[in-house]
C-alpha cells in the first residue's frame, strides 16, 4: 500500500456537499428500466428536489411522484397516502413498473413497506404492475449507494432460475447516457449480445421528435432482466461497489453467473482490460475500428504529454468515476494531488494504493468529505485543475482553478447527458478537454506571470 497522506476530517459540520442523497441514485437506476415510474415515499420536497437536480443535468423532464406525507400521516402512518399515490401514478402514467424509494422520513417513521405493498398487491390484483421497493434513507448513504441498491433490488425482483444462454450482462454505475451508448457500441462491435442494466441512455436523453410520451421510450426490458440469471457472464463496472450492494455478486452467488468486475472503460489501461475480457468472451480479436481508435488515443497522449505534465488535478465525485479519472491522470503524467469523494468507500482506498504505487508525489485522499476540505487540500497541494461535477464551481470562482466537468450533476453547463468519456474515443475526448483547460489557463497568464517573476515593469 502506498503511503497516502490524508487530511484528518474529524470535523462534524459538512460545508458544501460533494454528494447527493440515497434516493436520488435510486431514481436514476429506475429511470433505466422500460416503462417505469418512480414514487418517493416521504414529504413532497424530496421528489421535487430530485426532479430539479435531474432536470438540470439531463435537460429532460424527469417525473418523480411523491406520497406527499403531511404532519398527520407522519404521526399516524403513511399507508393510505402511499396507496393513493400508487393509484394515481398508475392512472396517469400507466407504467409497467413502479419503483418505490423510501426517504429519511419514511424510514424514521418505521414504515413497514413490505407489508403495505403486499396488501396493496392483494387489493389491486388486476393492476399487473410490478412494484419494486428499495430502502433509501438519506442518512444511510449517498446517491452512489442508492444507485447500486436500486439496481440490485431490480435484479433481485426479476431474476429466476432460467436456462443458460449466450448473452452477457452489463451492469453500469452512474455514468452519462453518452457513455452508455459508447459501451453498447463497443459490445456490438465485438458481436456480443447483452442486457445492459440500467439503460437510461434513451430515457434520460431522448431524441426530439414524435409524440411526447410521459414515460420516455427505451430502458432495459423486464423480460431481459429476468433472463440475466442465465447469462454466460456478467461484466460489472463496479470495482468500488461494496459486496452487499453488488448486483453482479448477487447474480454470481445466487445463479452462478461468472462475474468480471472491471473498472469503467475510461482511461487506456481500463479500456484495455475491457477489450481483453471481450476478446475472451467473444472469441474475436480486436475489431479494426477499435484498434484505430486506440491508435488515435495513443497519438493524442503523445501529442499532449508535456502539457499534461503541468497538471496538478483534484479529482472528486462518485468513487467509480474518481478511480477511472485518476487512472487517466496517472497514465498521462498528471498524477492527482487531491483525490476525494463525498461517499465513504474503503474499496477506493485499496485501489488507489495500487494505482498510485509509482507516482512521484502522493496525493491527499479524502473520503466522505465536503468541498471545504477539498478546497483546503487543493490549496495545500497547489492544485491547478479539477475534474468532477458542478459542485466544484467554487474552486474556479474562488481559487481560479479550471474545472473539467464530468459526472453528476452538471447543472451550470449544458449537455451533462452528452459528456463522453468512455472507450478509447471517450478517453481521448476527455483528455483533450483536460489538456485544453490547462492550456487555456496557461496562455491566459504565462506572459504576465513571467513578467511578474522577473520583476519587469511596463516600458522598462
Amino acid at each position, binding site marked *: 500500500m502506498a503511503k497516502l497522506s490524508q487530511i484528518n476530517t474529524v*470535523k*462534524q*459540520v*459538512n*460545508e*458544501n*456537499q460533494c*454528494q*447527493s*442523497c*440515497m434516493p436520488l441514485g435510486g431514481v436514476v437506476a429506475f429511470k433505466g428500466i422500460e416503462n417505469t415510474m418512480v*414514487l418517493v415515499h*416521504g*414529504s*413532497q*420536497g424530496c*421528489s*421535487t*428536489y*430530485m*426532479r*430539479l437536480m435531474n*432536470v438540470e443535468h439531463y*435537460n*429532460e*423532464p*424527469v417525473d*418523480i*411522484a*411523491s*406520497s*406527499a*406525507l*403531511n*404532519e398527520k400521516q*407522519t404521526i399516524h402512518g403513511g399507508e393510505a397516502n*402511499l396507496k*393513493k*399515490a400508487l*393509484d*394515481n*401514478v398508475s*392512472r*396517469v402514467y*400507466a407504467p409497467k413498473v413502479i419503483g418505490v424509494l423510501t*426517504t*429519511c*422520513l419514511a424510514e*424514521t*417513521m418505521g414504515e413497514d413497506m413490505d407489508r403495505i405493498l403486499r396488501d396493496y398487491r392483494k387489493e389491486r390484483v388486476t393492476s399487473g404492475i410490478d412494484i419494486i421497493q428499495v430502502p433509501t*434513507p*438519506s*442518512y444511510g448513504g449517498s446517491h452512489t449507494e442508492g444507485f447500486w441498491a436500486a439496481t440490485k433490488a431490480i435484479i433481485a425482483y426479476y431474476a429466476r432460475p432460467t436456462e443458460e444462454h449466450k448473452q452477457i450482462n452489463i451492469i453500469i454505475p452512474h455514468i452519462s447516457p453518452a457513455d452508455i451508448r459508447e459501451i453498447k457500441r463497443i459490445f456490438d462491435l465485438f458481436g456480443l449480445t447483452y442486457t445492459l442494466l440500467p439503460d437510461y441512455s434513451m430515457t434520460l436523453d*431522448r431524441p*426530439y*421528435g414524435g409524440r*411526447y410520451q*410521459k414515460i420516455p421510450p427505451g430502458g432495459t426490458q423486464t423480460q431481459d432482466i429476468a433472463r440475466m440469471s442465465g447469462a454466460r457472464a456478467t461484466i460489472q463496472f463496479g470495482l468500488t461497489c461494496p459486496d452487499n450492494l453488488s448486483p453482479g455478486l448477487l447474480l454470481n452467488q445466487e445463479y452462478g453467473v461468472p462475474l468480471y468486475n472491471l473498472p469503467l472503460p475510461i482511461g487506456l489501461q481500463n479500456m484495455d482490460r475491457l477489450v481483453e475480457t471481450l476478446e475472451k468472451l467473444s472469441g474475436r480479436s480486436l475489431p479494426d475500428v477499435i484498434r484505430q481508435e486506440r491508435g488515435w488515443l495513443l497519438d493524442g497522449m503523445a501529442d499532449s504529454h508535456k502539457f499534461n505534465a503541468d497538471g496538478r488535478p483534484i479529482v472528486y465525485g462518485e468513487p467509480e468515476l474518481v478511480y477511472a479519472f485518476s487512472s487517466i491522470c496517472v497514465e498521462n503524467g498528471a498524477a492527482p494531488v487531491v483525490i476525494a469523494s*463525498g461517499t465513504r468507500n474503503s474499496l477506493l482506498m485499496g485501489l488507489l494504493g495500487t494505482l498510485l504505487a509509482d507516482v512521484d508525489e502522493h496525493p491527499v485522499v479524502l473520503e466522505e468529505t465536503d468541498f471545504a476540505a477539498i478546497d483546503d487540500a487543493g490549496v495545500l497541494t497547489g492544485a491547478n485543475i479539477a475534474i468532477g461535477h458542478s*459542485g466544484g464551481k467554487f474552486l474556479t470562482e474562488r481559487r481560479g482553478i479550471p474545472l473539467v466537468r464530468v459526472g453528476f450533476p452538471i447543472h451550470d453547463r449544458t449537455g451533462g447527458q452528452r459528456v463522453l468519456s468512455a472507450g478509447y474515443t471517450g478517453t481521448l475526448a476527455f483528455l483533450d478537454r483536460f489538456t485544453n483547460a490547462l492550456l487555456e489557463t496557461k496562455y491566459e497568464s504565462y506572459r504576465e506571470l513571467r513578467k511578474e517573476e522577473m520583476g519587469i515593469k511596463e516600458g522598462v
Partner: protein
Amino acid sequence: MEDLCTLQPVGPTACIDEREQSIITTGRSKTSIACTNDSLAGAVSQRACVFCGARVVLNPITDAVHLVHGPIGCATYTWDIRGSLSSGSEMYRNSFSTDMKERDVIFGGEKKLAACIDEIVEKYHPPAIFVYATCVTGMIGDDIIAVSKEASNRHGIDVIPVESSGFISGNKIIGYRAAAEALIRLIRPKEGETIVPTQKLNLLGEYNLGGETWLIERYLTEIGVEINVAFTGDSTVAKLKKAPGACLNLVQCTGSMHWVARKLEQTFGTPYIDVNFFGAANTAESLRKIARFYGDEEMERRTEALIVREMARIRPEIEWYRKKLTGKRAAIYVGGAYKALAIIQQFRRLGMDIVMTGTQTGKKEDYENISHLLEPGTIIIDDANPAELEKFLIEKQVDVMAGGIKERVLAYKLGIGFVDHNHDRKECLAGFEGAVTFSREVYITTCSPVWKYLKAPDKEV
C-alpha cells in the same frame, strides 16, 4: 372543466378526479378554484417543501450561516439555490449541514448540532446562524430551539432556529411563515436596545435576483427615499436588525412577506403598502404609491419626471418587441401569485394572449384577482403537475411559457419557447429596464429560428 377529461383517445389520461376542482376555465367554471391544500399523493406536484420555502426566503441574508440540521440531501439540494446577488459577504452561498447519519437518527442529533455550531463559530465568526429543522430532526424531536438558545448564549451571537420540518406541509407558504418567524426573532430588539426611527423604508419580499434590489434602490434614491433594508436580498444581519427604524414597509412578494409586514405593524407600528416592480406600469404605479405615502410634493414631482423619462426611453424598444409578439399564445406557471399577476400584465403589454395561468401557492383571493385580468376561456390551475401542464400546453397551442426549471424542459420537449421566472434566474426582470429585458427574453425564445426545424415533419432515418 367540461373538456378536462376528454384527453387523448389512447393511453393514460392526464386527469385525476380529485384534481378537477383545482383546474378552472374563466367565464365557464361555476365554482371557485380549490387551492392551498396539501398536494395530492402521487400527483407529481411541482411544489417543494416547507424547508425549501424557509430557505429561499432566508438564504439571501449574505453574512449569515445557513445550517441545515438533517441528513445530507436537504443541504445539497438547496446549496446556492438562488440568483440573489451580494454587495459584500458571500457567506450565504455556502451550504452547511449537520450531515446526520443513522447513529444520529437513533441517538438524537442535538450534540452533533451543538458541535457543528461551535465549529462554524470558531472558523467564521458569523453574526448569525440560522438552524433549519428538516423532516428527520422534527420527527425524532431534536430540540433545536434549546440547542440554538444555548449556543447563542455560549457564543454571544444570534443562533436562530427555523422550524421547517418538511413534512409539516408540501406547501412552501408554510415554510415562508417559518422563515418569517425566524426573521422577527432576529430583528426584535434585545432588552434595553433602542432603534432610532428614520424616514427610510424597508423593501419586503425582494431578493436581489440579477441585482433587482439595486435597481429599485436607484429609482428610490432619485425620488428622494432611502432603503433601510431589503428582506432579504443583499441584506446583512446588522442591517436587518435596524428594520424597526423604517417608517414604511413595502411588500413585494406577498406570499412570503405579508405576515412579516403585519407583525412589524403590530410590534413597531410601521404601516405597509403592497408594491410590484415587475413590468413598467407596475413599477410606475408602485413609485407613485410610495411618493404619495410621503406626501411630499417635490418627491411626487421627481417621481413623475422619472416615470416620464423612463417610459419614453423604453417605449420604442417595447413597441418593437410588441410588433414581433402580438397574437402569440402564452402560458404561465410560477410559484407565487404576485409574480403570475405581473407576468400576465407584461404579456398583455406585448400584445400576447394568455391561455393558461397557474401557481404553486396562490390563495383564493389571488386567483380571483388573476381571473379578473384574463379573457374568458383561460385555464387556471392550482398546484399543477406535468401531465396537466402537458395537456394544456398542447391543447391551447401555446407558443411560449413562463415558469421555472422543471417547466422549462417540458416546454422545450413540446417545441414551446420558455422564459425563466424562477428564483435562480440570472437576469434582472424588475423595473423599467427589466421590462425591456423581459420582452427580449420572450422574443428570443418565442421567435427563435430553432422551432422552425423542430416543428418540420420528422425525417425518415
